[in-house]
């Protein structure tokens, strides 16, 4: 029988989804000069958040494609350590602006939530 996810599990999934796009922008923003490739983003996400977001790494790629479509990320190519050409993601001007705006919004949300507790 299929187990119904608990309320907190469902809430975690929804919250994580919203935060994940921001987290990807934040990581790419940390690599303004040279950009960062998909596997690098996954590693950094795992290391910096201690796995808190419990991200399945494959689901990062649809997010990266979405952010590219929104023109928040740009792509350039470079040779990977294992040989083939890989994509390196860099923040666009718009991406940088959106990332800064989202940071302000998130800070305000946390501040107000803190006041509620």
């Amino acid at each position, binding site marked *: 029988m299929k187990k119904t996810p608990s309320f907190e599990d469902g809430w975690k999934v929804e919250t994580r989804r919203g935060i994940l796009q921001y987290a990807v922008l934040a990581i790419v923003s940390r690599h303004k000069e040279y950009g960062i490739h998909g596997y690098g983003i996954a590693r950094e996400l795992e290391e910096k958040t201690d796995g808190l977001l419990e991200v399945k*790494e*494959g*689901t990062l790629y*649809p997010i990266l494609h*979405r952010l590219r479509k929104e023109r928040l990320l740009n792509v350039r190519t470079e040779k990977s350590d294992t040989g083939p050409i*890989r*994509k390196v993601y860099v923040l666009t001007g718009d991406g940088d602006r959106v990332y800064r705006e989202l940071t302000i919004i998130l800070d305000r949300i946390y501040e107000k939530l803190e006041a509620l507790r």
Partner: protein
Amino acid sequence: MNEKGIAQIIEDYLKDVGRVLPSGFETEDMLEELRIHIDEALQDRIQKKPLANKIDLLREVLNDLGEPKEIAEEFKRTGVLLQEQEEGEKRMSSLVVRFIINMVIVVAASWFVSNLPDAGISFYLALVVFLVFGLAEWSIRARQKREAGRIDA
């Protein structure tokens, strides 16, 4: 199991992912990115645990990537591929409509020209001539569009 076995497991995984996503350029692009991700993650793990069984390490990598359906769900949620697919379908229907209209014009023009007094040209010859002209125009336009696209990019 040898390197060939590892390559087979990777291929099977990518095939499973490809199966649950709509076919198209975006999917091909993403499968290539996933392949590079798997290679890099595996090499990383082999370096960290040189004595571990490579197949076990590969299973860990694929487990971290997630089930193909989880990736497909994220794609559906972000709407990237669906939008692409819809745009592709629209482009295809517009192409079919334009082709039908062009064919009607070519047939009508051939009939008209072959029925002109003293035309001296058969319907079929006129049809072939118009079709050749039509194809030439189509290919010139397609080339111009491609060049314009390159300049935009």
